[in-house]
């Protein structure tokens, strides 16, 4: 893994996966530390990438430092493989590494994602890489990094519980619908990246390695396989995920996150799977019956 790889033809003189080998090593060290301390945000010397900050540079750097020629890469955004930014990132790696890419969750060895976890359960030989905009779960309570790092060191998470309590007192429920805070391995409070809270339970005890990259904020964190990830809640207000009254209008799934699609200007709308691969595989299975 540490052997310098030959520059690829397609990318005109850039190293395999764009980053130079020294940078990849630095990032891998940060990843190892992150895996050793689940949920802890490891500062790393994030590089400028040829894609803009806020568009997945953290995830791209993590993927670039772990990808090898034998990997198969899947990239999704909003659950879909064909959203423009997912296309752009997949193309970036196809160009700089020449690795195989796939849209099928089960075929991928690395899945880079923005805002979703695939509906198809992940396995032990897969790594999921999350793109993270704001890694600090305490940021909206305390804007100062020096202060929030101290709060993590002391596991001073009371203010977050107070915030959740205030929501319940005022609105009868926690009003965070995505990027819902979790406690990892019973120790570190962590932002799961802006996935809908519907996806939170998938993180818990997941057999796949989950890596999180925040490029602009220069942080990497991780949830190792089979690690507890608990969404914050109270005994009398247990954490619950959103439900739909409808099933997917295309494949009929009643267990997946549904996107609402507006079909006309007279209030017409339908609900379809946000995970395009899941939806397609269910349609294929149905057609085969």
């Amino acid at each position, binding site marked *: 893994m540490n052997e310098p790889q030959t520059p690829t033809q397609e990318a005109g003189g850039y*190293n395999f996966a*764009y*980053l*130079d080998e*020294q940078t990849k090593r630095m990032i891998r060290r940060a990843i190892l530390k992150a895996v050793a301390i689940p949920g802890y945000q490891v*500062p790393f010397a*994030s*590089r*400028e*990438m*040829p894609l*803009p*900050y*806020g*568009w997945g*540079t953290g995830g791209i750097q993590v993927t670039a430092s772990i990808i090898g020629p034998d990997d198969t890469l899947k990239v999704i*955004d*909003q659950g879909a493989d*064909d*959203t*423009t930014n*997912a*296309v752009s990132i997949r*193309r970036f790696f196809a160009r700089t590494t020449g690795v195989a890419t796939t849209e099928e969750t089960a075929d991928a060895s690395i899945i880079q994602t*923005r*805002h*979703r976890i695939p509906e198809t359960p992940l396995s032990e030989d897969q790594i999921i890489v999350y793109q993270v*905009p704001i890694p600090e779960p305490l940021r909206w309570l305390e*804007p*100062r*990094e*020096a202060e929030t790092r101290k709060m993590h060191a002391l596991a001073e998470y009371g203010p977050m519980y107070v915030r959740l309590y205030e929501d319940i*007192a005022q*609105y*009868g*429920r926690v*009003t965070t*619908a*995505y*990027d819902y805070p979790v406690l990892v391995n019973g120790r570190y409070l962590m932002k799961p990246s*802006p*996935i*809908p*809270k*519907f996806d939170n339970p998938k993180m818990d005890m997941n057999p796949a390695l989950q890596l999180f990259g925040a490029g*602009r904020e*220069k*942080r990497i964190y991780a949830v190792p396989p089979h690690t507890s990830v608990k969404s914050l809640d109270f005994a009398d207000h247990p954490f619950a995920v*959103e439900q739909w009254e409808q099933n997917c*209008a*295309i494949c009929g799934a009643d267990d997946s*996150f*549904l*996107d*609402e*699609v507006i*079909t006309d200007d007279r209030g017409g709308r*339908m609900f*379809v799977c*946000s995970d395009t691969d899941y939806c397609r595989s269910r349609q294929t299975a149905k057609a085969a019956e």
Partner: protein
Amino acid sequence: MYVAVKGGEKAISAAHQLLAEARRGDPAVPELTLAQIGEQLALAVDRVMTEGSVYDRELAALAIKQARGDLVEAIFLLRAYRTTLPRLTVSQPIETERAAIRRRISATFKDVPGGQVLGPTFDYTHRLIDFALAAEGGDLPAPSAAPLAEAEAMPRVSTLLGQEGLIEPNPTDEAEPGDLTRDPLTFPANRALRLQNLARGDEGYLLALGYSTQRGYGKNHPFAGEIRIGEIEVEIVPPELGFPIVIGEITVTECEMVNQFKGSETAPPQFTRGYGLAFGEAERKAMAMALVDRALRAEELGEDVTAPAQDQEFVLYHSDNVEASGFTQHLKLPHYVDFQAELNLVRRMRAEWGQPENQSRAEAAE
């Protein structure tokens, strides 16, 4: 029947083709050359080199051409290129006292050893659109001013003040400064790192912050002690040689602000310094940087930290326009999963809103 939207890949290719056409503009108009950009849009090149952290005029000109004149986009292009370069060595500190001076002014003394040299400046021009420039092919009249007399020593104004002990000495830290591009910023950040961050920082942002200190948000009573623009040789000491060799010449703009300081328990009343440095001719940037540098020294000098410009985390975390532009514009990316989650929540809360059970809870909470 709705089918999931496809064709992102085709759309992207088509958009990039359109961009290439838009970049070229009307093919009947001759294409810009890099030499034209470098020579005639030199200050744009200087800004891109400074904030892009690469001293390479030709590359910066190319970035400007590729970015259709969008300087922040050009800075981004240059940064993304820079990041792939190896870091080979650290140069010797540059000695601006020895610069070949193109411009040098002081606002604190009417005359200073070496004199005031205006150089090529917009200052004192009347900002009247010069319609004559619209006509091409106009030749310049021969310069009437005599070239600058060589080799008159130009000691720094701050050095002159220092002889009387009226200004704090420059820091004497010999340690190799950190590198923001190799280690993430941590707080509190030392002055070398702060200056590094400001040097790469967005000119408009620093201008506004510096300006805010002049309007009372962290006032630090500045005087433009000295501004100099000149060419200076960069030296490195290769380990196998053990002595410095010149690897090239760069143009820099330096600003030393002299700021009033009433003294504290540990320091007598004296003037303090704010420092700004930029590649090329970038006077506005260097001056704004010096104001913000001084503002960020509030804590070290025992002043109250009350204003945005004095707040390290606020200033340093938001100065980089490549970071800021990327994150602001990422709002263009699809957010429909998060929005759907919010939509579900708002619908449920609206359904409950105004129901008797909910009202009593709202009252109880008040």
